[in-house]
Structure formats: C-alpha cells, structure tokens
C-alpha cells in the first residue's frame, strides 16, 4: 500500500507502546489472579499466603487502573486482536 501515510508522531508512538506494555501486564495480572483463585478454591494455600497474594493482586489492579487513567485508556482498550484466534484477553473481563 502506497497511499497510507506513515505518522511518526512522538506522542502516538509512546501511547501505542504504553498500550502494548499495559496490555501484556494486564494479561499477566489476569493469569495470576486466575491461578490464585483456583488455588484458593482447591484450598492448598495457608491463610497468610492467601492474604499476601490477595493484597498483591489488589495493589496490582489499583496500579493498573491508575496507569490506564493516566494514559486515557478504557479497560476494553487493553487488548490485542489476534485475528482468527480472537482477542488476547476475554472481552468482558475487568
């Protein structure tokens, strides 16, 4: 394609990069949370472990929300379209 203009706007590049980084962090956060919830359900964590993991996940979620706000992203913006495989993150997840 020769008609599409290449935009090398500094802000756009940084925003796109932040979006990609935040998307990957969000993926890891969701995976960790899912793993933690499964282990809680199975009951193989001590109460102290549950408390520590829960706090960590909660702080991570808060921090994610802050970063999203700073860069003006909605939760649904942090996702990648993998074409025929669908989206990287489940659409309804917060």
């Amino acid at each position, binding site marked *: *394609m020769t*008609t599409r203009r290449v935009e090398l706007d500094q802000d756009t590049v940084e925003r796109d990069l932040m979006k990609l980084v935040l998307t990957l962090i969000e993926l890891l956060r969701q995976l960790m949370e899912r793993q933690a919830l499964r282990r*809680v359900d199975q009951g193989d964590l001590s*109460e102290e472990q*549950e408390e*520590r*993991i*829960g*706090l960590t*996940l909660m702080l991570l979620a808060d921090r994610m929300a802050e970063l999203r706000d700073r860069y003006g992203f909605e939760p649904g913006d942090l996702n990648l379209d993998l074409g025929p495989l669908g989206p990287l993150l489940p659409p309804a997840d917060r």
Partner: protein
Amino acid sequence: MNGNADAAAGLLYLYAVARDTDLPGRHLTPSPHHPRPVTGVAGEPVELVRHLDLVGVAGRVPAADFDEEPLHRHLEDLDWLATVAHRHQAVIEAASSAAATGVLPLRLATVYRDEESLRRMLRARHEALTAALGRLDGTVEWGVKVYTLPGPEKEERTTPAPSASGGVGRAYLRRRGAERRADEHRARQADDAVRQIHTALAASAEDTHLHAPQNSRLSTHPGHNLLNASYLVRRDDDSAFTAEVRAQVERAPAWGLMVELTGPWVPYSFAATTTGPADGTDDR
C-alpha cells in the same frame, strides 16, 4: 492478456446466473419495457450471456481495474470496494426482481477473460448451477445478529473492609472469585440462550449459515456479537420466520441479549458455497 479479440474490450464481470427463460433480451433492464440497461460496477451496461438453459448476468469491465493484479490493489482501497460492492448488489437486486424464479448471486469480482470462458464455466458447472437455482428458487435470506446488552455498571472498586475471617487481601480474593463466577454464569446463560434462539429460528428455515461473530471494536454496537447467522427461508414461510424472530426479540432482554434482524436479501450466503471459484479470476 492472451491477445484474442475480446481482450481489447476488457474482462467479463459476472454478477449472477439465472434461468435462460427468466431474463429476456440482450441486456438487463429495470423492467421489461424499460429502454435503458442497468449499469454495473464500471458504469457499463449489464449484458445477458446465454448458454444452454442458463444466462449469465455480466458486464464488460476494464482490465486496468479488474485484472488480477490491479484488482488486488483495489481490494485494499475501502472507498473503491464500497462503491463496487454497492453497485454489485444493485445489479443483483435488479436481476433478482426481474427473474421470476430467482437468481444465483456471485461473490464480488468474479471475472472471466471473455464470453467463451464464461460459457465454458456455465457448461462445466451446469449441473451444480441448476441444482443451486432450484434450491434457492423462492427463497430469501435473513440475517440475524445477537448481541449482549451492556451490563449494569459495576460500582467502583473500593478497598474491601477486613472481615472477621481475614484481612483485606483475602476479602479481595473472595470478591474477585465471586465476580468471576458470576461472569462465567452469565456467559454460560448467554450461550444457552443463543443456542435456543438459533435452534428456534433454524426450525422455520431451509438452511442456516453461521458467520464469524463481528469484532466488537469494528462494530457500532455497545455489546458483544455472540451470533451472526444467515437463514435461508422460503417466501411462503416468511411470515412464520419473522414472527419467530419477533418472539425472540421480545424474549432476549430477559437474557441480557439483543436480537437484530436484517433482510430480506438475495440469498448470498447460500449461493457462495455452490457457485464460482474461490478466487476472483478463473478459467483463463
């Protein structure tokens, strides 16, 4: 280009195939006594190419736009594509309303070298084309999409109060676990409901075709597209089908869903599987 006489005139763009007796004359006209032919994707008069008991609804288009290589370039140009798709559909609609027993619509940009190669295709696929015309005779296509309704806004996440059974971290985990189970429950319910809707509609349809759900980021709808289906319906069953859709439209909000109906269309989704080659140019 292979240097034959038709090459200078360009390529032959095929819109649809119909039964010979359904479309009289040399050109496709909006009505039997209308003097001016319908115009096609390149503004050309749409011709009727007869072979055996079939007729191809076709137009001569410039090779500079529709030969394989320029065509691939054009297909990435959304404005060009929108214009061509619109005109393509207009020709098919015109042919469909002129032909008593319906037409077999072809996909966008089905192109032949010349009349001879188009006739060759009509001969080679005669049996399949005739069968498809018979199957689609007297049918229309309805499109049904099911979307999730935007859910109730979740209240802002607040720091959970430590309860008797543990600290803030454990309370957070419990709440997320409950939310996740609720989400999964909702998703399962929606899946069941979509399956019920599809089964109910399929019962009054001849055939169904499931398309990939639309990417919600490209759609104007706030919800997610869970079902994107086409239903082939006999004209005689039309009112039964649309009544069934109306019933589903009314039930859907109780499941957190929204049902959208489009049509009636010429049965594109059911013709594509029986006609023509997978790629645009063929039979050179």
